[in-house]
């Protein structure tokens, strides 16, 4: 059994990288391996936006990641500074920054780049999308 860390740089909509990342993650678990963390960086942080509202016949990557995390208890972590720059905030960041609203869903935690580095250190493989 091997340990993976997955980095997602592709946005929630407009790129197919996030879709492939999730398919890869599912396959990692199906093959008996584990995922230390799915780390969302660059435009990848938009995957945590709970206000994502595609039409019912469209793919909702936010909902897919959330369901995946819930079902398999895999941690999803946003890079907090990449997220703040892109208007992706959790309740705590909203309060700290004097904003009335937030959009990052509870299944995604906010963390620093240090979590990526620690994940790389612990993992057997880093795969980026």
């Amino acid at each position, binding site marked *: 059994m*091997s340990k*993976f860390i997955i980095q997602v740089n592709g946005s929630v909509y407009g790129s197919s*990288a996030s879709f*492939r990342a999730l398919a890869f993650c599912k*396959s*990692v678990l199906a093959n008996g391996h584990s995922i230390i963390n799915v780390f969302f960086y660059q435009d990848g942080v938009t995957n945590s936006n709970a206000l994502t509202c595609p039409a019912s016949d469209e793919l909702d990557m936010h909902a897919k990641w959330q369901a995946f995390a819930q079902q398999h208890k895999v941690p999803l972590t946003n890079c907090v500074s990449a997220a703040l720059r892109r208007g992706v905030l959790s309740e705590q960041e909203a309060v700290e920054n004097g904003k009335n609203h937030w959009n990052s869903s509870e299944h995604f935690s906010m963390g620093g780049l240090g979590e990526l580095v620690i994940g790389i250190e612990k993992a*057997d*493989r*880093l795969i*980026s999308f």
Partner: protein
Amino acid sequence: MILHHIQTSALTDSALSTCLRYIQPNDSILLAGDAVNCLLQIQWQQRLASVNLFVLQDDIQARGLQPRVEAIAEHMSAEFFHIIDYSDFVEQSLKHNKVITW
């Protein structure tokens, strides 16, 4: 022994040509997403002929390219050309020493 993971079209991004500048003979390339389209171009078929190549099946099927890619694969060495699924992708990521996503 590196698996070079290419996700972007060779017509709009230099990821594939940059990776080829630094590739070693025992490395492999995985074409995923729009990167699979380069197989339709003779110049890329030629440049990739001597590389151990993996192509993500979902991405060629999604684009209606499977019959074409299979026909093209016949001209390339079977030993070096593999159409794979996500499970094989996971396996190859572990068989290689690391994966570089360009």
